[in-house]
């Protein structure tokens, strides 16, 4: 009885862990193809409008499509809005860090804006393997190790060699899972934003227009939101010692993850 039930519980658990694929809206595919055709034929404005509409569909309430964000970025590039395009490419990469075209276009866009391309360990790791794969695979391996350890402890002889194997699986599996989570940029994206103002924004020492200036940030820069105070955000341009920090008006930047991703 137990032997039959347990594998079922395990299987259901794994199925719950993988991303839930939602059935697509009936007209979504057609609209997307239409927007792509517009973009390919040089009608970027129409394509951009359709992409924006697509992103308001209920399918994208809790999920996103890297392809749509990438295509929207292309459309924005064609319409000359490099800053908005950089945000779209960043969102595409947030959803699918291995999407090479988005990485290339982001590099080009940032280059045109005079902003360095991010080249950290996270980016290098995520180009090779999706963090979701790392996290889920690691968790599965870790739990297999945990179950194996239980079985060995109760059923098999307690030989060291046998016990070590599940222990290794537990540490490696869950360690990989944690590593994947650390590398997953979605983890910190909630506190990040892209400066989408048309011109460079002045950082202020206090949340007031008359406050002392402490530097400027170029449009397209990825910033971390450290604190919020009404219509002002206290932001940082990075984690390094030379990073700039200061207050900016919140309308000068767009969160990397906004509640209405399609509209911004």
């Amino acid at each position, binding site marked *: 009885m*137990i032997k039959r039930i*347990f594998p079922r519980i395990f299987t*259901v*658990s794994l199925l*719950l*862990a993988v*991303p*839930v*694929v*939602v059935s*697509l809206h009936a007209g*979504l*595919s057609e609209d*997307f*193809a239409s*927007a*792509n055709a517009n*973009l*390919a034929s040089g009608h970027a404005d129409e394509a951009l409008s359709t992409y924006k509409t697509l992103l308001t569909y209920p399918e*994208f309430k*809790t*999920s996103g*499509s*890297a*392809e749509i964000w990438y*295509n929207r970025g292309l459309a924005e*590039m064609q319409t000359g809005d490099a800053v908005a395009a950089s945000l779209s490419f960043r969102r595409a990469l*947030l*959803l*699918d860090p*291995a*999407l*090479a*075209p988005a*990485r*290339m276009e982001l590099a*080009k866009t940032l*280059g045109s804006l005079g*902003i360095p*391309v991010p080249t950290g360990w996270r980016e290098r790791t995520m180009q090779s393997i*999706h*963090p*979701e794969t790392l*996290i*889920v695979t690691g*968790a599965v391996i870790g739990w297999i190790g*945990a*179950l194996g350890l*239980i*079985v060995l402890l*109760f*059923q098999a002889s307690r030989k060291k060699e046998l016990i070590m194997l599940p222990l290794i699986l537990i540490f490696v599996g869950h360690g990989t*899972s944690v590593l994947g989570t650390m590398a997953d940029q*979605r*983890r910190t*994206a909630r506190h990040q934003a892209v400066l989408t103002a048309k011109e460079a924004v002045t950082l202020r020492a206090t949340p007031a227009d008359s406050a002392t200036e402490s*530097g400027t940030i*170029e449009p397209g820069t990825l910033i971390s939101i450290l604190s919020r105070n009404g219509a002002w955000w206290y932001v940082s341009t990075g984690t390094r010692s*030379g990073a700039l920090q200061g207050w900016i008006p919140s309308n000068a930047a767009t969160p990397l*993850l906004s509640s209405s991703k399609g509209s911004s």
Partner: protein
Amino acid sequence: MAVAVLLLTGWLLPLRLNAADVSVSAELSRPQISQGEMAELQIKVSGAQQADVPQQIQADGLQIRLTGQSTQFQMVNFKVSSSVVYSYIVMPLRTGSFIIPGASITADGRQFRTPELSFKVDDAKAQSVDPSAGPPQSSQGIQPPGIPMPGFQQQRARPAQQRPDEGHLAFGEINCTKKTLYAGEMTPVEIRYYFDARYPVQVRGRVDFGCEGILVERFPDPKQTREDRDGITYNVLTFHSLLSAVKPGSLDVAPAKLDCEIEMPGALPPGFDDPVFRQLMGGQAGLSQQKQVTVKTSGLHLEVLPLPKEGRPESFAGAVGQFDIDSIVSNPHPTAGDPANLVVKIGGRGNFKGMGAPVLTQSEGWRSYPPSDKFDSSDELSYTGVKSFDFTLIAQQPQKESPGCEFSYFDPITAKYVSLTSTPLPLVASPGGPSPAVSGAATSSPTPIPSSGQKLAKNAPLKEGQPLSGITLRSWTTPMQRSEFLIATLAMLVATAALAGILAYWKIQSQGGTIASRRRKHIAELRSLLTGGTVDAGSSYEAALEYAKLVLPPSEKRDALISGLTERRDLLKYGSGGLLPLPAIEHRKLLESLELTTTKAP
């Protein structure tokens, strides 16, 4: 926290200093003194914390005696060195020129010998009237007549005992060969920090250099040298790096700063500022103080020019410098349908990190993917080297040569864009079976192909700027932030606990149950045996005895009963009648004593 780690490191580091190379040097505080003065000879043993040195050094006309020792630890950019300094007083017995012979030193199990040193003692009067006789402080060394130990005056004049000029204690210089550069151009920058060699220095932290608008590469470990300037010997830390500007305009880069701690001689307390006390302190700056110093270079002004728009090739992707191009095909004969690899190597010097990939030319009939890249640097700053771009190519029709390649860069020396091309290479490839992605591209009407994101990215015709087809839904949050993952984790925890419980239960059952259940079972068996009356008298008493021990609560009555039962059992066991059935009356009495009732009629 970082400071704590540094301090801890500072305490622990002596443990690993034994591995350091040992060197011995000798230095005179002054090579020339006047008669009546004294000089100090310091023998420095670096890389060891203890050494055997002579108490006296024999030299004709001089008296050289050991006065003390001190140990110094220096940490320069996290590289720690230790040294022990032995101080000798050199007291001249007459005027003239002397050679101080080398001293034999044993350190770290090895023998060393200090070099010979020249030493001169002038007549005091001649010295005092000679205006060119040494630096200004030597005037302090002129002794008034009648002072019995004039050498102590020299101690006051020793640099280590003076309050040094802090402007010359440490300073920095910055050297950037180019003051006018183009956006994206990388230029070497050298930062040098000078520390007066007489004072131990501990560097705290890293070089703080940069400002908005420039990018500075990480500083590799500095080079440490010695340099004399204005008669002062300095330890020099030289940092090399590269900087590049990201936006055009005038840039004023703030000075490069380095925090450090310099051990300086401190003022002796009132009443102790005495030559004798100093001598008792071993001739060293016995009372020293740590001075926190931020060493700064001068600022740097840069003029950053924008990259010209005129003549910018379409294949330009941000490379600035001087480069050349080479290409190879790693597998010139792939089997049908298999990909071929075209490796384009861009070598030279410039901003390798910021450069984009070359552009394929003559790529009709090929499906290509964005290249992977690898950079092999030939210097520690990644300024020169070779960057390889590996293009994966799949033939869509029979091919006899690879695509060509074009790479453009901006040469800041000639201020012109340069386009490099590589010609197609021999390559025999043919397509495999029909591909849906190819057919989609051929009709130029993108058809959505629902598939996984990774698969889509690789299947899509990735011509630059072409929209992707197919939609894959992915979550905006990591699995660990999603409820389904948490539910699955909880389910696994419950499943693991359930599995452990079930296995434990099975194990207990296989061992006959728990101790309590085994006890209950045994009591029931005894009770059945006793009330059944089917066993012989000896066994009945044996069972009764065990039952009494297990069931009856501790009391005097129980003890008496057990004693009686034991006696009767022994009588039956070792006497006669043990194998006969128990008489009915005795059986009843036995059950009554055990507070049991019979289940079988006697």
